[in-house]
């Protein structure tokens, strides 16, 4: 079964602290993985994808096939990072399969 698991519903950190949002997946073969972000009152938007190995807004994510994980990390959280974060993979029908999301709250 193709599945994305985000174990934390809510993650609360202080400004300047490191952040790690966890994502585990279940997929046969080589998955195509993404992180999407939804800021308050804004549309869902792509943050980064594993295939391009990019760093956006200081966030990075490394695919670990052995642990079937794609955790999102940032060394120093900013208040403007507060948002809902969704991990997703491309399913067999070309659709996106999302996790339930983690709400990141960065406190001043």
């Amino acid at each position, binding site marked *: 079964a193709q599945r994305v698991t985000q174990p934390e519903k809510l993650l609360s950190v202080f400004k300047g602290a490191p952040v790690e949002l966890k994502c585990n997946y279940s997929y046969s073969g080589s998955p195509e993985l993404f992180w999407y972000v939804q800021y308050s009152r804004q*549309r*869902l938007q*792509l943050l980064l994808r594993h295939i391009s190995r990019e760093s956006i807004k200081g966030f990075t994510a490394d695919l670990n096939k052995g642990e079937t994980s794609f955790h999102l990390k940032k060394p120093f959280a900013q208040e403007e990072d507060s948002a809902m974060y969704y991990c*997703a993979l491309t399913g067999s*029908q*070309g*659709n*996106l399969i999302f996790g*339930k999301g983690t709400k990141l709250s960065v406190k001043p």
Partner: protein
Amino acid sequence: DAGVTQSPTHLIKTRGQQVTLRCSPISGHKSVSWYQQVLGQGPQFIFQYYEKEERGRGNFPDRFSARQFPNYSSELNVNALLLGDSALYLCASRYWSGGPSGYGYTFGSGTRLTVV
């Protein structure tokens, strides 16, 4: 260049009624997909269309149907509405970004459907 546009933004319907939601993809994008996002959950795949043909379907009842028009816009129809159909319905425009980056997806702002 306009992004993915959805209409209406909000809708209130009564149980048993039917609803039609509309989506226009980004100009030049030929693939449209629909997702349902219930409060507190991630988006769930409903349909995908490419060049007016259904290319994928999620685990939703037959009350849900969709179509894509020659201009690549799309409609999602839901019949016999239930309270549980209350959700944010998202439309996504899928495109080939080329090279190693693969496919990309751009989402609309969604239609908030409330069934009472």
